[in-house]
């Protein structure tokens, strides 16, 4: 599905390069559930951002479903991202001023989906995540776990091929994280490719494959 070849990303500090990603190569197949582990600062988030095309890299090649991302203009990249990828944040990043329903609906608005279809899609996903009763609440009225559920629902609404989750349970207690992980597993079984970054061994264990990052390089597969 996606292929990273010898990716380098660095920042300059006092004339020296500090490598965030250092000769990183990675293959992710359709239907995989990949967990990326590593200590703080090992480059997990940077890697996810690069995969999400939210961040540039300095050297290397990136193919997403045979598209050479490194050769594309940023607008085209954004298009590919918007069509294929759902992103889930550690801090949920729900829009505070919008209700649960509206938060989930927003990506559809941006994709110019028709009103009737939007209603159906949002209703489906609310139903599926068991949050129909919460649809008119605002984010601050929900618990962390519920907020992350909304975040996931919002990421899924465009039916992405790939879900990127950057420490999705980092702000949750263990019971809540188990529930989220269980959900990821189910989604994966339905065919969605998932890449998650995580600190926790137990969460990572839900994945079908685990890689470890250290100083911007893959340690072992």
């Amino acid at each position: 599905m996606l292929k990273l070849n010898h990716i380098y990303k660095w920042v300059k500090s006092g004339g020296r390069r500090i490598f965030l990603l250092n000769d990183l190569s990675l293959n992710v197949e359709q239907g995989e559930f990949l967990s990326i582990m590593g200590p703080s600062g090992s480059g997990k988030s940077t890697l996810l951002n690069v995969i999400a095309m939210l961040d540039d890299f300095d050297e290397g090649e990136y193919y997403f479903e045979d598209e050479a991302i490194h050769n594309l203009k940023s607008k085209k990249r954004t298009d590919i991202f918007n069509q294929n990828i759902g992103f889930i944040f550690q801090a949920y990043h729900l829009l505070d001023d919008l209700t649960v329903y509206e938060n989930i609906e927003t990506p559809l608005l941006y994709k110019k989906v028709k009103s009737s279809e939007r209603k159906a899609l949002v209703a489906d996903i609310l139903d599926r995540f068991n949050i129909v009763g919460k649809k008119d609440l605002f984010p601050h009225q929900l618990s962390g776990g519920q907020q992350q559920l909304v975040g996931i629902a919002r990421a899924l609404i465009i039916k992405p091929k790939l879900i990127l989750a950057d420490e999705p349970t980092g702000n949750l207690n263990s019971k809540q994280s188990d529930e989220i992980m269980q959900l990821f597993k189910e989604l994966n079984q339905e065919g969605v490719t998932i890449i998650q970054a995580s600190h926790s061994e137990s969460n990572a264990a839900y994945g079908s494959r685990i890689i470890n990052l250290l100083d911007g390089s893959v340690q072992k597969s």
Partner: protein
Amino acid sequence: MIKNYIKTGWRNITKNKGIFSINIAGLAIGIASCLLIMLYVSDELSYDRFHEKADRIVRVVFRANVNGEEMKEAVVMAPVAQVLKNDLPEVTQSTRLAKSYNNRIEYNGAYYGQSSLAYVDPNFFEVFTLPIIQGAKTEPLDKPNTVVISKSFAENTFGNTDPIGKMLKVTNRDENLLVTGVMEDMPKNSHFHFDLLVSTLGYAQAKKTSWMESDFFTFLVLKKGADIDVVESKLPAISEKYMGPQLKEALGMTFTEFTKENEIGLFLQPLTDIHLHSDFSDSTTLEQGGDIKYVYIFSAVAIFMLVIACINFMNLATASASKRAKEVGIRKVLGSNKKQLIYQFLAESFISTFLAAFLAIILVSMSLPIFNQLAGKDLNFQYLLSPEVILAIFSLILIIGFIAGGYPAFYLSSFNPLSALKSKFSGSGKNSGIRSGLVIFQFVISAGLILSTLVVKEQMNFIQNKELGYEKDQLLVVRNSYLLGNNEDNFIDEIKNNPLVENVTHSAFVPAGESDNEVGGIFKNNEFQRRMSFYNVDENYIPTMGMEVLEGRNFSEDFGAESDKVILNQKAVEILGFKKNPIEKSFQRDTHDGLKTMTIIGVIKNFNFKSLHQEIEPLILKYNPYGGIIIRSKVADMSGLIENLNGRWNAYNVKEGFDYSVLDDSYNHTYLKERKMGTILSLFAILTIIVACLGLFGLVTFTAEQRFKEIGIRKVLGSSASQIVALLSKDFLKLVGISFLIAFPLSYYLMNKWLQDFAYRTEIHWWLYLLAAGITIGIAFLTISIKSYKAASVNPIKSLKTE
């Protein structure tokens, strides 16, 4: 999608009520001011445009400079109209108007004093669009002694009876006028207003052939497409042809000889320029007009008000960018493109602008009566509801919404989603530079307007306190004392004996307000010098007016006949070259019976007998008591005296009531235009600084929020509240300070230009700058300190806990 934009926009607005109110209030004030000024300006520009031929009608005017006397007259000689029509193919019609003063109209024994009456040529109604609603629709004035009256005059005089065919009497001229038509009242935005238009066919002046006396306002209708400059270029030849022979006879010089050293000529002025572009002498002006300069000034103020309000909007929006950054990041990750974000921010801006415009319209409707009073206008709110204006307002809203919301929209939507989410962004850097620039701009305008207002006020004070060469206070003018007929002298004697009266004089010549006028040619050794103004006075004039005799003596009954004696002002002495020992020198003046020798018996100190816009001109006082009465009261409160005079007047059983004017009021009235301008300017100066300070308040609010934690830390470290206030205020006050450096030179330049209009003017003193700076800084500091003091007095624990 649009629904969604509006919904999120509205949520955002309601969440930030404080900032939102500032935005709306500022914008509403800005838009309301702009609308008011638009009303005012469009009214000023609409003068005389209601005539169907407005764009083809021109007025013939006279300008000359003869031996140092500058003449600017809106009236020309009686034969000009006919000659121009005959000699110039471009002129299709010409018509004349002569204003008549002191008219007493009588109908059925009732008097309608001081009605405005003019003699007009029979074709007047073909040139000007003044609809006749009753009587002869065409050529109502084609017979001598016919009159067309205005609708309101008809209602006043005739009530419900049909006025057509009735006779009116002009008692002071013993004329009988037949009413042949009733016309609509002349619109407000006409440069002349008359209740009675009388045919010139029975008017002797109209038949005069002299090219040496100007009496008639003369209007031409040009052929369609005729070039006014081309027509004007043919006028010198006409002047030479017709004026030349008469000039030769009067002065013994050919036209060519005369124009070698003097300028003299006829010019054309478009009808639609009359109201705003006239600089003609007061005595030849039908009504005090407007001034194009003020139209420019107010238009600029209107635009500034809007821009300042828009700047508030932009500044507050970009300042709150840090708050919105996260939202932008999320939305971008959720698939929003830049365009969609721009739409969203614009939607917010449009909601605010619409609300502000709505509020502004309410504000305008409420303040219009007050504004009308200040501006001396009769602006109508209905005008704002006409389709074109609504369309204009609508597009204005769109433009404002776009300007105010556009910059923040483009700016916010360009955030990189990652750094936006990490909140790396803060409201500083390049952006705060732009913001500072905008704040400076706002205060340049505010401080500039405040200084300008102070200069206008200072000039008005100067006018009020100027040594005029006579004492303008406690003078009462009774212009129509001639109505008493034979009893006039008795009335004057009574006044003389009134214990409330200091002095009284019998003259119709008043240095301010409505006055008689006499100008005549002056000859020395039978050689023409120039024309000079005359005052016809009696021996009490100089003491009553409080003038100063510098040399010689006043007129006196002791010397018997004084009619060939004159008293000159210093300027006249200087021009006639009598600097040394002017007394007993003589010169000749032009009269209907040839030259008459006058002997100088005294010199008075120059006094301002025209407005302070003009230099003092030469003036000759001659002994010829007639006309009205001028009374000097002993006490400042003249109400008792007026009461008393009114009683005496009525005892003489005059049909018309006692009418008087207070000279001081008439004097002030002369500068009504400037005074009004000053009032309006100060009003908008205040509004401008209010709006600018609203913006400042908003910005301080944001800074205080941004530096919430810093303030907490500083307080824990022992900073006092006032130190914190200083910390937060310093940067803003610096901006205000910088704005003075731009505002003051600019304002100095413009106000100096304005002052050039006055021959007698104040200086722009250094302390005016100080005062303007003090006012501006004071208001700004007050605004800032309210907010920053609040921020400084928060318990530091609170701010540090939020981490």
